[in-house]
């Protein structure tokens, strides 16, 4: 089975960002940084994405959206919080409408701080996320194998019983 990390597809979502981090995310896609050389594609579709890249803190409007998009991504999947707002809520942390960082809503795997996060650090974060992704894939496969061996195991038990 080929590694997920060889073709990680991104989904980029702006939870409440000032667009500073968004511009930096898009910057990664420009010829200068060219993240496609890692096989990374910026897809717009949660059904096809492996990495969810979120900028900005979560507010009450985007909370359900983040949850839903996250639920629509197939396993294995990782979440990268880009920018200090996405990590902790940043300067907006105490605002009445902000819930805080992304991790208040969905589990976050990699935190990329910065205001705005630099393209280099975003790429660094994504590369770290790839490791997490691979770990998750292995875990998932182990789980699947366990499930599968669980079934034949009971069947084998039956067979054993008959032979006795």
């Amino acid at each position, binding site marked *: 089975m080929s590694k997920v990390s060889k073709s990680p597809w991104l989904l980029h*979502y702006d939870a409440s960002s000032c667009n500073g981090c968004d511009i930096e995310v898009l910057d990664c896609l420009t010829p200068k940084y060219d993240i496609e050389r890692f096989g990374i594609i910026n897809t717009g*579709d*949660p*059904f096809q994405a492996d990495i969810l890249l979120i900028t900005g803190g979560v507010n009450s409007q985007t909370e*359900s*959206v*983040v949850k*839903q*998009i996250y*639920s*629509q991504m*197939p396993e294995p999947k990782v979440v990268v919080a880009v920018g200090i707002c996405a990590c902790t809520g940043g300067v907006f942390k105490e605002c009445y409408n902000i819930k805080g960082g992304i991790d208040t809503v969905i589990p976050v795997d990699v935190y990329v701080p910065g205001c705005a996060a630099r393209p280099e650090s975003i790429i660094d974060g994504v590369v770290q996320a790839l490791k997490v992704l691979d770990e998750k894939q292995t875990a998932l496969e182990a789980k699947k194998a366990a499930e599968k061996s669980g079934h034949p195991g009971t069947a084998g038990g039956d067979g054993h019983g008959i032979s006795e």
Partner: protein
Amino acid sequence: MTMIPFLIGIPVLFALIFPFMRESRSRGIMVYTGAGIVMLTTVIFIVQWLAGGAETLMLYPSTELVDHLMAAGDIILMCLIVYLSIKYRRILPILLSVGQTVLMLYTEFSTEVAEGPHMSVDWLTILMCIIIAFIGGFICIYTVGYMKGYHAHHTDVQDRQPFFFSMLFLFLAAMFGLVFSQNLIWMYFFWEITSVISFLMIGYTRTDEAVNNSFCALWMNLLGGLGFAAGITWMAFMEGTVQLLDVISAGAEVPLICLALAGLTKSAQLPFSTWLVGAMVAPTPSSALLHSATMVKAGVYLLIRLSPAFYGNMTGIIVSSIGGLTFIMASMMAIAQNDGKKVLAFSTISNLGLIVGCAGIGVEETVWAAVFLMIFHSVSKSMLFQSVGATENCLGSRDIEDMHGLIIRIPKLAYIMGIGIAGMYLAPFGMLISKWVALKAFVDSGNFVLVLFIAYGSATTMFYWTKWLAKLLCYHIPRDTVKDVTHRDEYVSMSFHAAVMLLLCLFLPFVAIKVVNPIVRELFGNSTDVLSMSVLATMAIMLVSIFIVPVVMFFISRRSHRELVPIYMNGINEGDNRYFTNSFGDKEHLYLSNWYLRFEFGRRHLRIPAIILAAAVLVLGFCLVIGGAL
């Protein structure tokens, strides 16, 4: 052939009984009996004919009494038209009707024509008989259930069911008469009856729209009738004969183009296609029977009969160009329609256009394709009309937009409709095969314009059918539960049609060799195998691909475990795929619409230019032909 008077007489008898049957239950039984007897008689008739060697028969050489009765019938029809036209203050139908009847009577009583057979039986007649008896018969059965639902649904319309059934059976009788006739005067008589019945049925609801449309249908058909009468007059005076076969052997172009005019109006070709679209106000059974399966086929039947004479002359070019033009124009106009029946009407016009185009070329291959198209079109279109009618009774609307997710709401109707639609354009169903043969034939006959028409026309045809099919197959949780109020009678008829459609597809080579080839052989004296064996093998592959593949895939895909998630709506999906949160934070219903491209393919843009163009071709053709004859 003693059965022919029965074939015509039995439906007439039933038609006479229905006005006295006011009680719906016994009337239903009567319809079943009538349809059953008609089908049984047809089967006996065909078996007799086949047992007799399946030869072309020429019958009834001298029939003076019946001739006079028909003359009387013509006058009665004229009086009826004049009366109704005066009642509704229309002048055109009176002029046309009086004109043609006077012309006919003058011809009949002033010329001495050679004695000849008045009726004939051959393979084409037999095919038409099967279509009339079985499709017609089952549509009558469908009508029993449909009209109950129709009147429950349209409470404002006066219940005139006895009249409706009477007309249906009378129509069957007229169609039988029409296809048996060899003598043009007889054929003309039956031709006029079908026009008048169509007129009466379109006006069933007696609303202003219905009356207007019925008169539109009437005058256009009467114009065709006038053409018919003129053709007969020319034949009687110039050639001294009124036999259909003599028209072909004489090859004179004037009667040919006059009769072609009659065929074109009857089969609703441009510039006369308006009447068929207007005819959709009639209750659905009459649309299914008259305006798609049989009556409009009378027009193409006449043209197919005449097709050997069309080969390589002016009339043939005119007929095939008008057919081709109608094919593409009507299919474009169908794109912009969202009313199910209107789409069916335009698609009928369009397919008839293709048949007319084939007949107009007048070589074996094209006529082969034309006959094939006729068979498949009759079955699948009548099925589609019936399913749209049944859907309308259930949903209260026949808008295609309202059929969103019909597969969840009324699965049975959706399957039937799906088979009908697939039959109209998908491989391996017959329509596509005939389109393929037609394309090859057009190329062989060197008709460049028709090749272009068919190339573009099949693309537009594909568009409007696909979007309808896609609408049916949406897996969408319905807004409201719909009760399937379709009666058993309706399902009987629709399942019959669906079964016939699938069987035709399965036994396509058989139909080609046993039914279509003999027809072509009779018309042209010989027939080559248009569909070669290798094509039949391909057909088998296609059949496998469209039926078996999805079934196998169904079982394969069922084995896999899947996690069902909501559809993607930018993360603002409200639970069950039906609602999303709008910019005010409220729940809003998701509504998906098809593309109709109204501003590109709308009727208001294309209708007038198409009519003008077709009329110009027709007028030009008449000028050239008549000028050439004088």
